[in-house]
């Protein structure tokens, strides 16, 4: 019974943990501009994150090595350092976006300008990382993030023509008025938002910290294969409500407030309150994950002690990096740069960095020295290879498309 409970908890937190500011904004934005015609990009992204999160979890359980250990071992110190620099910058950028997201969500609840919330949000995130235990943090924010289910409720209340929605998903087309480069630019953004590298840094490091063994592989798989797809459904619900309410009214999402509007239209104040709670929890949870991940990446590259299970004094340099990242993230948002723009850039740059993270995972999960008999099966390898090609294509295309479309304008 207790085990069942812990599995259920894991699944629930995975759902809540999948959605962050990048998913909220990108899904809402894409839904309001392209309807569900880009749903395929989210679906492909969900398959990708399931695939690689499962591999990284398995590697963590069998070899006790987290993702950035593998990056350095397999790419060598030089390419590994370049990878670290890129991954670290993107993780901190995403961290900044999440802190901005917390502040924007709090502004929606209070109408107090978000800039005033930013320092408080940064401090709260850092305090939780400093003092609160992993399992508590994961469960609380994962469960509160589930409040985002109101988007599914709102979708149902809008009583759309389901066959029409299904048709948009299954027969993707580019609605008139948007150029093909823009269409693919947003496809990459959705893909990047679903597969953000920090998710595997966090997932694998968490597994190592909790001393997963081979026996935990099944639990890890269950969390991944149930939690992430359900999280993907939440993203799709957000996109669908935007497509139904905002698209016909010519509203293109450029603020978090617009993402929540369809919920109010469909289901009223209480539902909207739940949506705001979900925004705060999802962005706060993701801020914790990105903040920790910035420390994980650096500490794992240099071989420093890291983690939340030891006293902060014993992982001094790790905590120093987390502290510095928090300050950098808060400072970034305090420059009054639009947090939504930061979010959009963070998901696109995430897409650029995908191969850097996922290649080493694919290689090690095939290495018998590490994995013994738990190496990838044929299906994992076939899909893994397909996705490796896909992430390389997305990474190469992202920046040119960004420049060509002026970041999707």
């Amino acid at each position, binding site marked *: 019974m207790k085990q069942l409970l812990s599995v259920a908890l894991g699944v629930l937190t995975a759902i809540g943990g999948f959605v962050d500011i990048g998913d909220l904004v990108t899904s809402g934005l894409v839904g309001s501009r392209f309807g569900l015609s880009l749903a395929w990009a989210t679906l492909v992204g969900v398959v990708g994150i399931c695939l690689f999160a499962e591999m990284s979890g398995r590697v963590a359980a069998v070899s006790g090595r987290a993702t950035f250990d593998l990056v350095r071992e*397999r790419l060598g110190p030089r390419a590994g350092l370049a990878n670290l620099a890129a991954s670290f910058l993107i993780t901190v950028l995403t961290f900044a976006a999440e802190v901005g997201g917390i502040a924007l969500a709090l502004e929606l609840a209070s109408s107090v300008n978000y800039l005033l919330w930013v320092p408080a949000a940064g401090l709260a995130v850092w305090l939780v990382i400093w003092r609160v235990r992993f399992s508590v943090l994961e469960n609380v924010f994962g469960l509160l993030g589930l409040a985002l289910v109101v988007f599914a409720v709102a979708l149902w209340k809008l009583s759309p023509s389901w066959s029409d929605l299904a048709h948009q998903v299954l027969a993707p087309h580019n609605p008139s008025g948007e150029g093909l480069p823009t269409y693919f630019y947003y496809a990459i953004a959705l893909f990047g938002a679903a597969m953000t590298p920090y998710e595997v840094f966090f997932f694998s490091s968490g597994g190592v910290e909790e001393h997963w063994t081979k026996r935990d592989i099944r639990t890890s798989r269950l969390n991944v294969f149930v939690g992430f797809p359900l999280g993907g459904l939440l993203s799709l619900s957000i996109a669908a409500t935007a497509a139904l309410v905002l698209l016909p009214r010519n509203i293109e999402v450029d603020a978090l407030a617009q993402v929540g509007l369809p919920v109010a239209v469909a289901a009223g104040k209480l539902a909207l309150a739940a949506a705001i709670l979900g925004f705060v929890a999802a962005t706060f949870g993701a801020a914790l994950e990105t903040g920790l991940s910035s420390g994980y990446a650096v500490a794992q590259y240099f071989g420093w002690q890291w983690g939340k299970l030891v006293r902060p004094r014993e992982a001094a340099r790790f905590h120093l990096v987390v502290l510095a990242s928090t300050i950098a993230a808060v400072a970034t948002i305090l420059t009054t740069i639009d947090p939504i723009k930061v979010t959009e850039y963070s998901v696109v740059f995430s897409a650029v960095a995908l191969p850097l993270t996922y290649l080493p995972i694919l290689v090690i999960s095939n*290495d018998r020295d590490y994995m013994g008999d738990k190496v990838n099966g044929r299906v994992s390898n076939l899909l893994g290879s397909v996705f490796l090609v896909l992430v390389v294509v997305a990474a190469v295309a992202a920046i040119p498309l960004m420049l060509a479309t002026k970041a999707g304008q």
Partner: protein
Amino acid sequence: MRASDLLGREVLDRDGIRLGVVTDLRCVLDGPLRGGLCAPRVEALLVSRHRTGSLLGYDRNEQQGPWLLRVLVRLLHRRLTVVPWTVVETSQAGPLARPLALRVAAADLPAAEGRHTPG
């Protein structure tokens, strides 16, 4: 001397023909006993034409998947040569000659053997 002094070093054979660069040092744990383990002793140099991708391990493992990566990496490392330490010119005292010179001709070195993973 450090391991990094040998890694990446160019290797020329007896006739001065370039063999490639040192991608790895193959060791046997039979050196002087130190503590609980015998120290790893360098038995041979693995020499390939490039360094890129060698750390992925595909150049040394026939089985490791996925197929796509194996094919790509092994294309880069078509000729992986195992150079026994005994044929490396080490007469000079102090730092080793740069590039490393061999006492034998390239043709006399075994090639296929290197494709197997040790251990």
